[in-house]
């Protein structure tokens, strides 16, 4: 119950940035589709989907990184954690709240891109597979950023999440098996290869690996957060 309350609170506290993102997502198809008067080609629609999907992930990462920092700096966290709320529950609430924002945005993207695809006469059967791809990608990046933001400044946490998620792929020329340890990169490649072609499929293995990695990041974040002096001034 506490987790859902905290998640709902994250959503409420970020309602204005969410509205901006929502406007951005819904304006895209209108512009690409020339407000219903132009038939966009497959490459343009795919570009719109890929671009906004990446924006949603980045937006969620920034929200997640600032969430805990802002709560500590404003000292609002003191009253929340003085209640019967565990540290891991609080972190889970923050994570779920951010994922709720990503879900709303992903659904908006799904609806808008589906409308755009219909107006442009493009097949829509594979389009909705982008949603789980986007959500798992967000979960991975958000959990990584939350883990780093438990002990780093939010901007540093977002910056460091990129090498942390992609570093294993650097070893690809030495041993291709290492690539499996960078599910974030595999999901990104999967997204960027989307183009309404009939042979495009979802990288299910990468999705599963990303979920496991996200759970690992959350566990590490909870372990660090449990030992953090919440009331100490942050640097």
């Amino acid at each position, binding site marked *: *119950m*506490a987790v859902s*309350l905290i998640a709902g*609170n994250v959503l*409420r*506290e970020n309602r204005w940035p969410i509205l901006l993102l929502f406007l951005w997502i819904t304006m895209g198809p209108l512009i690409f589709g020339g407000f219903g008067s132009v038939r966009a080609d497959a490459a343009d629609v795919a570009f719109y989907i890929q671009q906004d999907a990446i924006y949603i992930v980045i937006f969620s990462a920034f929200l997640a990184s600032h969430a805990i920092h802002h709560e500590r700096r*404003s*000292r*609002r966290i*003191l*009253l*929340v*954690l*003085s*209640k*019967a*709320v*565990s540290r891991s*529950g609080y972190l889970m609430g923050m994570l779920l709240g951010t994922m709720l924002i990503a879900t709303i945005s992903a659904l908006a993207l799904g609806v808008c891109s589906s409308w755009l695809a219909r107006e442009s006469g493009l097949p829509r059967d594979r389009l909705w597979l982008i949603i789980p791809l986007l959500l798992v990608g967000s979960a991975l990046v958000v959990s990584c950023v939350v883990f780093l933001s438990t002990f780093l400044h939010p901007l540093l946490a977002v910056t460091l999440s990129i090498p942390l998620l992609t570093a294993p792929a650097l070893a690809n020329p030495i041993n291709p098996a290492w690539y499996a340890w960078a599910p974030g990169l595999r999901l990104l490649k999967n997204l960027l290869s989307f183009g309404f072609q009939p042979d495009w499929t979802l990288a299910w293995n990468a999705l599963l690996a990303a979920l496991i990695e996200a759970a690992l990041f959350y566990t590490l974040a909870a372990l660090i957060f449990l*030992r953090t*002096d*919440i*009331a*100490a001034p942050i*640097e």
Partner: protein
Amino acid sequence: MISHFGILDYENITKDYRSWWSTQRFRALDGFTLSLERGEIFGFLGRNGAGKTTAIHLAMGLLRPSSGDGQLLSKPFGHTATRARVGFVPEDVALYHRPAIKLLRFYGALNRLRDPRLQQACRHALEESALQAEALRNVGKFSRGMQQRFALAQALIADPELLILDDPTAALDPPARVSVRKLLLQAKGAGKTVFLSSHLLSEIEMICDRIGILDKGRLLWVGKTSRLLLSRDRCEVAARGLSPENFAGARVHDGLLIIDVPVVSQRETIERVWMQGGEVVSVNPVRRTLEEVFLELTDGSGQAQWPSV
């Protein structure tokens, strides 16, 4: 290890703050030991930076001790479920900007209250803190005093056994302070324990059963308020049938001559009263104000002048 657990126990706790980037450390608490007794109002005093807020945050599990041990309602500091039985008001109240009733419901629900009990508790807490007329107003638009009253309301919502209040009356106007005082005395009457940190010494003096004085992370004195305020160095000899001119510094009160003298001159003063044909009515230790005692204790060498009780 602590041998007996009460309502709130600190056992030889030390807390150091250390920066990530430097090896310098600041010791906020140094071998801090304290036990609260059930049903009392305990006044926690100290200058700014003495370590009061650190001690309170340790109890609430918001900080971890560098060494030592402590228990809150017989559970280790930081035990999640136990916090539902504690009402906490932090020093600088920071609240989400929402209508008061909705925010109160949020805090109540975090403490595992559910409707219809939650609804009743919200109504009751708003009444107790005199905010029922402001229930639908956004807390962000409240004055600082109203926000502090709201903080008290959220502390009371789950009918806690222990109230931990960090300077809860700092921003309140005199009538609000009186009502908070009444509220704390009512809480004591209902068997609750109150751990009250405040800089308003007159209030502490009025309502606290025991007082602890902290300085530079060390507990200088802990004991009953009445005992703290009675001077061991001076006494008041009350006599009648005498002229005030014969005793320097003496004053007349209710027809009696009150002579304030050092304890060592007590016998000599009584003999002087008798020799001048006066009658000694009473001899009592001088009762000082908490402010005098506090300044005397914390401005000096930092050493306790009286033994702990």
